[in-house]
């Protein structure tokens, strides 16, 4: 089968790989119909996440048709069209029982902070992802959800990560009616976080980025204020000034390790990998929030060797309010929002690219070429 194949930092290609097999009685094999490239994949693509091995297939946002199921699979059947949450969760451990599906303790042997994630290095379990014609889906009784009748597959694929992560970012902000919310990062998740902040009753939503076309997109899609940090001077002072010198009620970091805007952070975090990535957005969030305010982190940070392990704060869901999204917990509500037209995820998709051209797709997304917001890869056997 054809699959994305990681060859090293900034180098990927599509090549032939063996078909995935049932390796556990609760496994399913799905024929991938849609798979996205996520901003988090760029951390892997840039070589920032340790234990990203050459030969891996990335991709944690995908939908597919069930082709085969293991002997213990009862919740889905061959032929179902499913959306597959990016978390691999057993549903049995103490953390899954608390609905912390992003923190499952039975899906990632290599690390204890984060649960298993499709196609996200061995730090997240060593699973191949969905940027392929076929994918192995463990714990098929827990995560995969049959796409509701009539739902557009483009909407469905964004329910695997982007929408729940953006929604949970807003939810973790504890937004109260009338609150001012600032979102750092106008990528797909940041835009969705801004959009969802209104659902919680925000009184004002501001988004900060440095790419004008993304800001324009955010303005239109999320109906929020949008500012280019290169044009407003010190973003923290700007935020204070625009909130009557108090600071925002809620700040959301939707950037993570790849943040631009501070030379020292860029050199030590992104170029030399001496800390968990550039923490510029996190600094701005912490410094822009008002006293007693809430900082919500969904931007991904790597592990650390010399600073506070902020990546683990995210992955373990420690209280600053940060976590990987608990997709399964949020799905029922979000499906309802999509069906009622409150959310329109597929509008984020700007590029449909054949899987064969995965190298170009990564380049377009990572270099922000051609006004790209969200690319979807279509495999030759997608059949739709």
């Amino acid at each position, binding site marked *: 089968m054809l699959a994305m194949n990681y*060859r*090293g*930092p900034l*180098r*990927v*290609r599509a090549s032939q790989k063996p078909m995935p097999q049932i*390796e*556990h009685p*609760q496994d399913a094999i799905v024929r991938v119909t849609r798979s996205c490239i996520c901003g988090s994949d760029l951390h892997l693509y840039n070589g920032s996440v*340790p*234990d*990203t*091995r*050459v*030969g*891996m297939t990335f991709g944690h946002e995908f939908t597919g048709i069930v082709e085969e199921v293991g002997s213990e699979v009862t919740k889905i059947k061959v032929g179902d069209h499913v959306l597959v949450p990016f978390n*691999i969760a*057993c549903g*049995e451990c*103490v953390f899954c029982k*608390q*609905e912390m599906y992003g923190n499952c303790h*039975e899906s990632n*042997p*290599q690390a*204890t*902070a984060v649960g*298993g994630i499709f196609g996200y290095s*061995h730090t997240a379990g*060593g*699973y*191949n992802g969905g940027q392929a014609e076929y994918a192995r889906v463990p*714990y098929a009784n827990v995560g995969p959800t049959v796409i509701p009748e009539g739902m557009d597959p483009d909407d469905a694929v964004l329910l695997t990560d982007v929408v729940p992560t953006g929604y949970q970012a807003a*939810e973790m902000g*504890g*937004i*109260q009616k009338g609150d001012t919310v600032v979102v750092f990062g106008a990528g797909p998740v940041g835009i969705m976080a801004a959009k969802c902040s*209104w*659902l*919680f*009753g925000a*009184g004002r939503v501001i988004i900060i980025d440095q790419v004008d076309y993304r800001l324009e997109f955010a303005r239109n899609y999320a*109906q929020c*204020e949008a500012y280019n940090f290169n044009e407003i001077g010190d973003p923290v002072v700007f935020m204070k000034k625009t909130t009557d010198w108090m600071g925002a009620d809620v700040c959301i970091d939707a950037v993570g390790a790849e943040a631009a805007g501070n030379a020292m952070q860029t050199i030590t975090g992104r170029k030399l*990998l001496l800390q968990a990535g550039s923490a510029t957005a996190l600094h701005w969030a912490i410094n822009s929030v008002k006293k007693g305010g809430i900082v919500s982190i969904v931007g991904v940070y790597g*592990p650390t*060797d010399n600073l506070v392990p902020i990546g*683990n704060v995210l992955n373990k*869901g420690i209280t600053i*309010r940060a976590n990987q999204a*608990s997709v399964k*917990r949020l799905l029922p509500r979000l499906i309802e*929002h999509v069906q009622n037209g409150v*959310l329109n995820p597929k509008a984020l998709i700007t590029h449909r690219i054949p899987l064969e051209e995965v*190298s*170009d797709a990564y*380049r*377009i997304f990572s*270099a922000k*070429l051609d006004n790209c917001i969200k690319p979807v890869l279509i495999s030759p056997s997608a059949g739709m």
Partner: protein
Amino acid sequence: MENITNDYSHIKGWGIDADPKNDPTYPMKKRNNGEHMGYSWTRPTLQPETVEVLHSIERPNVTAVFGTSTPPSGLSGMIRRLAFKKSENDYGHWLPLILADRINVVEGIIEDLRSGIVPNIFAEKGMKAEWKHNRSGVIRQMAVTAIIAYGFVAFYRAKKRRDRGY
């Protein structure tokens, strides 16, 4: 600063998920006594270990399922095995993994060549897309690289001449 309005009628769904009791600890508020009982849940069926799986020393075992995409191999694999003797709390775990990743890239090129594949690095880096959508940027980058390379060559040629004393 934009004009702020309190009329949200243009925003579909405004406030529909508002909850004055939005609990900062959610979903941990669903906490039960299970976690005080340690590693006591009924474990799912265990996936057979058909490949080498490294596991964190912060847990007693391998998880019930795991990925089998790329088992450790070669020199990078040896370094990874050493890394997994240290905890996730230790730089002795993460730094060797980063080193192993870099070595693994070279191993990948060797593996390609052995299999008769000459990696097309230009294509793998997506330069076709860059050329299509950012031609001026590519040309600027190539020019800067050429100037720097020329500077190095000129410097070493001059140094060679100085060393020879003419």
